[in-house]
Every structure is written in C-alpha cells, then in structure tokens.
C-alpha cells in the first residue's frame, strides 16, 4: 500500500542526508526536530512547544502503567498494570510503544533510548508534530482540556491524595478511589463546558467549596415534617432533570461523604474529563499522526535529507503500525484505529488531488480543492463518529473490504447487512460511525431520583440502547461501589424506549433480606 513517490522531485536540488547509520545522538535528534519543524510549518501544523524526553524502557514501563502521565496519584490498579506489562514485556509477548505523548503545554513526548535513529525520527514526526497539532487544533480538545494546567493539576492531585492517605489511611483512600474508578466513564460532562482552572485556584477553592457543600447538604436533608400527598411526593424528583455525570452528582449530593472524599471524587472526575476527548478521537488522532509522519518523512526523503536505507526502515515500521489483520486472522482484535484514520486522511488528500468520477459524486465539495485545507478542516472540526460519517469514502471501504454484521438477539442467526458495494456503502458507513459513537458504545446511565424525604435511596436509570442490557457481574460490583459512596440504598433500573423497566439491580438486594 505504500507506493514510492512520483519521481518529479528528482529535479529538485537534493540536500546532504542528515545522518547515516541507525545510531542516534542528541545532536541528531535536534537536527531532525529542526527539519520537521520547518516542514510542519510549511504544512501549517500548529503545535504547542515540544518537550522531547528520552527515557529507558523501564521508565517507559512506568509511564505505561500510570495511564501515560508523568505524574499520577498512587493506586494499586496502576501497580497491577505495571506488573502485567512487565511480565509481558520480559517474556517478549509485548513490545513497548515507541512513544507516549501527553496533551500538555509544552507537549511532552517520550522517546525510548532503544529506538534507532529512523525510529526516533518517525516518533518525533508522529508525536511532536502529528499528535501535538491535533491536541492543539481539534475542537474537542480545545473545548474540554486545558493543556497548560494539566501537569499542575496532577501535581496537586498527587499531593492531595497522599496527604489524605497520611491522614485517613491508605485503605480509606483506596476505597474511595476504587469506587470512583469504577464510575470514571460516568464522571464526565458531555455537553457543558468545563472551566479550566490552575492548580493554585484549585487549591484555594477546595476549602471554600468544601464548606459550601457541607452547608448546602444540611439544607438538602433538612426534614421538616410536612404532610404531603403521595402523588406530590412522587412528582417531585431530585435532581429535577436526570444527571448523566454520576460522579459529579455524588460529589455534590452524597449525604455522608467527608470533605476530603468529595475532593478525591472531584480529582478522579477531572482526570476522566481530561481523557474524555481522547476516547472520542482515537481514529482521527492516530490517523492524523500517522498521516503526518508518513508525509513528513517522505518530504524529507524527497529533499534528500534521509537516505534510502532510512526510508526503508521507516516504511517497515510504518506498515507494521498501520497493519490491519482481517477479521478471520487470529491476530484480529477489531479495527486498527491507526489504519482506518490513516486511510481516510490519505484518501482525503487523494480525493482533492486526483478525484475520480465516483469521488466527484460522493464528495463534490472536496474533489479538486486544496488538500491541505481539507485535512486541516477535517482534523479541527470532528470527532471519530462524525469524521467517519463525513469522510469514509467508497474507495477506503473497498480497500479495507469492510462489511457489517447485524446481530439481533431475536434472530437465531447473524445477518450481513452491508458490504463494500454500491448498495452497501452508505449503510456501512453509518454502521461504522455508530460504532465509534461513545453514546452507543457505553451504556447511558443517569441519576434519576433520590428519595429525599424517605429513605434517601438513590435511583439510577439505564436508558437501553437497542435493547442492550448491562453486563450483570460487573454491574453488581459497581453497585457496591456506588452504595459505598452514597451511603444509602442504591437502585438501578434498565428501561427501554417506552420507559418500561426491563432489568433491575438494587443494593441491598431485597430478594436476599
């Protein structure tokens, strides 16, 4: 799939190669980085300043296990990740990622010292110019994360949590963190703008907030013995509108939590919110970065800055990054986001530069326009779902030979409802886009009601999407966590589109008492 470039550049004046051989030095890293920066500028890649850190494989393992962040509070689950990674790595079952890049300002990228020079160059192009410009440009990141504050915030979080551990014991803190981690995906705001805050402000407000919450809570639970008709009690729900951010709701309203516990919930919530855009832009983000490392390296090659051998090694690594096993391959584990994203971005360029009749029909606005404008527009204004819906072309579907399976539990069979042919393109594209819609992928849970005047029980609702139930075992586990946070009875009901309750979970379990 990686054909050589057309030889029209031969006429251009070729420069001396920057390096020969596979060893890297810090001087070379600088040289390459400078060249990439120059090229990135040419392609209008707007980035945060880069901070490139060279680390050893052990340090990479460390970074791996704390969700890639340079600092993170301590938790056993990171230890678990570390141990399993270490085991897999030592037994050769897993290679380490060549890089980790952090959405911060300056943008921190980790390079492994074991990498060869072509590898380092690839990583710099991929992370420091690809991902970096995505972090800075994509609307989700712009809206939801504050790159300049995250490191400070994590520092604050780490300190705060270790102080709590000193004061209240490791186990007590662990209990809260475990519960919060279980609800992490339900701890993000989806539609409301988060106002970023610096660590100092954060700290200053922590106490104020705590006091305020405590005051408010007392009001909320003040039980004045006023007789109300049963119906009226039913009608008044708290919260008035269902709340999707369960952690937020618990932080603000759980009656029995202590101040420090609320603060910890808040910390987990903030971290979850920070990662939220990344979960929604995996295909785009990786595709964008791969698209640019591919382009930048070729640009370098065309200018004569890198040697034949260098580009060969690069192409080898590149094709293993964007390798997509087919569905019946034992290595298959879903669609490789690198491949899908890379293919789409590259196809956008192709459509702009060499449109076919099919493209003119499918993408009339795109065909023949400036490709650089087109890819930048795509990168800035979409998340995975919309990106696929907008840009997945018949050619990419054909190239990847995509097909869609319809799985309905009322049928004893699975049906192929669309394949890469004229009648199937649109359906296929919609199905694939829906697959990347977090709203479909993750269960939709909301805080429905709190029995404020009664037993203070918390009622959550799961709005079923296409009749899909919750996985029972882990749901029961999470119920225990919610119960621990809320302190009173917890109920969870799965309702279908007619608001009819299909499944119910409750703690304590009424069937057992």
């Amino acid at each position: 799939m990686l054909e050589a470039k057309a030889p029209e550049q031969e006429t251009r004046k070729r420069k001396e190669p920057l390096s020969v051989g596979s060893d890297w030095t810090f001087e070379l890293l600088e040289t390459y980085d400078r060249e990439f920066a120059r090229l990135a500028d040419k392609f209008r890649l707007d980035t945060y300043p880069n901070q490139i850190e060279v680390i050893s494989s052990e340090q990479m393992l460390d970074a791996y296990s704390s969700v890639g962040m340079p600092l993170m509070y301590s938790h056993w689950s990171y230890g678990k990740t570390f141990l399993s990674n270490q085991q897999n790595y030592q037994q050769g079952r897993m290679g380490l990622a060549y890089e980790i890049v952090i959405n911060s300002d300056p943008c921190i990228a980790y390079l492994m010292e074991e990498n060869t020079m072509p590898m380092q160059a690839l990583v710099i192009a991929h992370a420091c110019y690809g991902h970096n410009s995505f972090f800075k440009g994509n609307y989700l990141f712009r809206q939801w994360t504050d790159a300049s504050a995250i490191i400070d915030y994590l520092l604050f979080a780490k300190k705060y949590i270790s102080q709590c551990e000193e004061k209240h014991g490791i186990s007590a803190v662990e209990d809260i963190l475990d519960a919060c981690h279980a609800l992490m995906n339900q701890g993000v705001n989806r539609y409301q703008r988060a106002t970023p805050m610096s660590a100092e402000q954060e700290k200053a407000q922590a106490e104020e907030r705590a006091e305020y919450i405590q005051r408010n809570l007392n009001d909320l639970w003040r039980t004045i013995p006023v007789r109300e008709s049963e119906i009226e009690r039913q009608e008044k729900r708290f919260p008035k509108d269902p709340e999707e951010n369960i952690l937020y709701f618990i932080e603000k309203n759980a009656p029995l939590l202590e101040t420090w516990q609320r603060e910890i919930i808040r910390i987990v919530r903030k971290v979850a919110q920070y990662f939220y855009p990344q979960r929604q832009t995996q295909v785009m983000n990786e595709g964008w970065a791969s698209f640019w490392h591919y382009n930048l390296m070729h640009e370098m090659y065309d200018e004569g800055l890198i040697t034949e051998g260098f580009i060969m090694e690069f192409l080898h690594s590149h094709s293993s990054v964007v390798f997509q096993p087919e569905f019946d391959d034992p290595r298959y584990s879903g669609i490789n986001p690198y491949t899908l994203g890379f293919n789409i971005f590259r196809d956008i360029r192709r459509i702009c530069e060499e449109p076919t009749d099919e493209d003119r029909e499918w993408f009339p606005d795109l065909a023949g326009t400036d490709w650089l404008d087109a890819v930048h527009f795509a990168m800035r204004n979409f998340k995975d779902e919309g990106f696929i819906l907008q840009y997945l072309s018949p050619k990419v579907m054909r190239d990847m030979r995509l097909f869609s399976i319809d799985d309905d539990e009322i049928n004893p069979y699975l049906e192929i409802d669309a394949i890469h042919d004229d009648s199937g393109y649109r359906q296929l594209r919609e199905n694939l886009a829906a697959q990347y819609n977090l709203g479909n992928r993750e269960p939709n849970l909301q805080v429905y009601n709190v029995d404020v005047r009664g037993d203070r029980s918390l009622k959550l609702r799961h709005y079923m999407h296409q009749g899909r139930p919750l996985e029972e075992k882990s749901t029961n586990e999470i119920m225990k966590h919610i119960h621990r946070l809320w302190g009173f009875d917890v109920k969870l009901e799965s309702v279908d589109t007619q608001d009819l309750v299909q499944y119910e979970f409750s703690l304590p379990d009424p069937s057992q008492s």
Partner: protein
Amino acid sequence: MSIIIDRRLNGKKKSTVNRQRFLRRYRGLVKEAVQDAVDQRSITDVDSGSNITIPKKDLSEPFFHHGQGGHHGHVHPGNKEFNSGDRIQRPPGGGGQGTGDGDASNSGEGADDFAFQINRDEFLEYLFDDLELPNLVRKELKDSTDYKLKRAGFTTAGSPDRLNVIRSLKAAHARRIALSGKDRKIVRQLKRELREMEVNPEELDQQRARVIREEITVLNKKLKRTPFIDDFDLRFNNMAKVPQPSSKAVMFCVMDVSGSMTRDIKDMAKRFFLLLYLFLERNYEAVEVVFIRHHSEARECDEQDFFYARETGGTVVSTALKLTDEIIRERFPTNEWNIYIAQASDGDNWEADSSKCRDIILEKLLPVCQYYSYVEITDRHHQNLWYEYKDIEQANSGHFAMQQIRGYSDIYPTFRRLFEKKEGSHAGS
C-alpha cells in the same frame, strides 16, 4: 523550538509504590500463591523469586458496559465471500465475531490467571509471614571481639580518609566571613565614596580618590591573604565503637541415613532443612550449617554427602547427638553463637538407645541451644524414639518441638506449625 531532555538517569522505580499497593491489597491471594509455589518447585530454587499466579476474576476493576443480547451491528475488515443478506450461524456462546470489540474486550470476565513476578525477598516475606524464631535472644558478647562502628557526629581531628568535605568547607566559609567581614565592609564603604566622587570631579576630590584607591588595594591584598581553607577548618566524621549483639547462628542438621531412609524421605528432609536455613538467614547476618549424618555411628560431612551418599547399617541416634555436643563445645562457644538443631529421621532407632538420646538432649543440648526441632518422616506407627521425645517436648515446650511429616505437602505446614508465632500455647499436636 523543541527542548530535548535526557531523562534516562531519572528514577525508574516510579511504579514501586503502586506495585506495593497491589501486593498489599492482594496479600491474602499472593500468600496462597506463594505457598502453592513452594510445594511445587524443586528443592534447589526455593531461594529465588517466583512467578505468582492469581485468578484474574479476583482482581477485576469493574466498569459499566453492555452484556450479551439486544440488537447491534458491527463492522469488520477483510471481507472475502460475504454478500449483503447472507445469514451466518451465531457463534456458540454469543461470543466471537458478532459481539463487537467495544464490548467483547471486557477482559475482566476471562477466567485467565494474572501472572507476575515477585523477587526473592518478597517471596520469602510471604513464605515466612507470621512466623518467628523461638527464643530469638541475641547473645551479647562478653569480650570486645564484635564491635560495630557507628557514626557519631564530627570531630576536629582524625585521619584523612574520614575527612568530611562539606562540613570542612562550611567551616572554612564561616571563618572567611568572620575574619574578613570588617575589612570588606570598609572596602564597600570606600568604593561607594569613590563612586560619588566620580560623579562630581573636583581637584580636592581627585586627591582623596587617589588615597581611597590605594587604601582599597591594600585592603584587597589583605583580604586575599585570608586562606581559603585552614587546618582549623577541617572536620572529620567521628566513628564510635558500639558493641554488637551476636548475629551469628549455627544450624545443625542431623539426619539418619541408615538403609531405611529412602531417597524420598531424604528429599523431604532436605526441604525441611532448606526452609529452616532460609528462615534463619532472614534473621541472622551469618548462618553456618553443620551436617551430621548417622547410622550406627555419626560423622560430620558436607552437603553433598549428607543428602546423596548411600549407606546402610543400623540406627543409633545418640551417636549423632553426642557428636553435635562435641562440635558445639569445640567450635561454637555458646556466648557467640545462636544454636539451632534440626533432626530428621524416619523414627527408627535401636531400642535401648532412645533413653540415652533423651538424656543427652535434656542435659547437654537443650541448655545451650535456642531451639531443637525434630521431624519424623514416616507414615508408620511411632516407635520409642517418638515417645521419648514427646516427654521432652512436654517438659520444654519453648525450646523443643516435634512434628510428623507424611508427604511432601506436609512439609511446609509442619514448618509453619513449628515456628508459628506463639500466643501463650506451645506448638505441637
């Protein structure tokens, strides 16, 4: 412009805390796994780290996700023969292709085991968790043979190798400040005056300026003469001798090697001795091992002979005990050594010898040793040696313990029983 930083020298053990947290949280599971591991592994590598495997389901981190059922579609790459409208059989169990990656990858559900490595120290810690050495009375030395040097502040005199550079330079700095402070103050004053004068140059001032400049040169010269470092500044680390309690232990392995001891029994005995050795090693700085083998007579030997040489003959236990006593008196003065004796046998002994054994143990060995443990590796009836020992045990419950081992799986539990932390009651069955 990018910044490139070399972080390779930064700490790499960032995950240590998290790793410890993990082990702490699953202490119970890890302990179980360690005990399983020790039963399974070969004798020679008890003393290394270990792969630990615990069931994954116990470590799951739950999150809300969809279960089986409902209606959903999924897109896959690499179509070969499918056409739209094709129907295929649902894979059994509902898993496989149809369920979609976002949901099927909830790896927490798998019954796989979670495997990881712990190092030797951790392994031993879990292995010997809640065990203690009986009578761990560190013996004080009467003579000044065993001292330890401990840091005890700083002195102004000492040998050059004890020189404390930081303290010395600090002292020098302080001295320089103290000695030259006055002069430097004057210099500063003069300089200030000079600067003011330069602003309005008059004839009279010019002269004064010259005088001042001269004065400054003189003072500066004087200042320069203050030595950078002086004998007076030197500081040395002071070391004090502190008498050390004995941290040496000797372990006597006494084993019957008569014809009735099969290879299997010896193997079991070896494991037992090994555990004891590791355990002692954790508590003492130096552990020596003396191997005494006996049939109808006893002999000190090396480890190889002890476990693997073949011999036949009758069994007279008392010879070994006598030899032990002799060796202790010759080589291991009781004020220096903590003495542990472990005896393994299949219970056979010459009838008339058992009472002799009892006398030797009671009169000679028990008074000098910290602990005497006896394991009988047999599944037959006990013979008279066992009953004689039983008497000793009743009279000396703190120093003497005995257990029976029937098979490999008994070894570790027996060991635990012998060395359990005692709360009031004595060990034994």
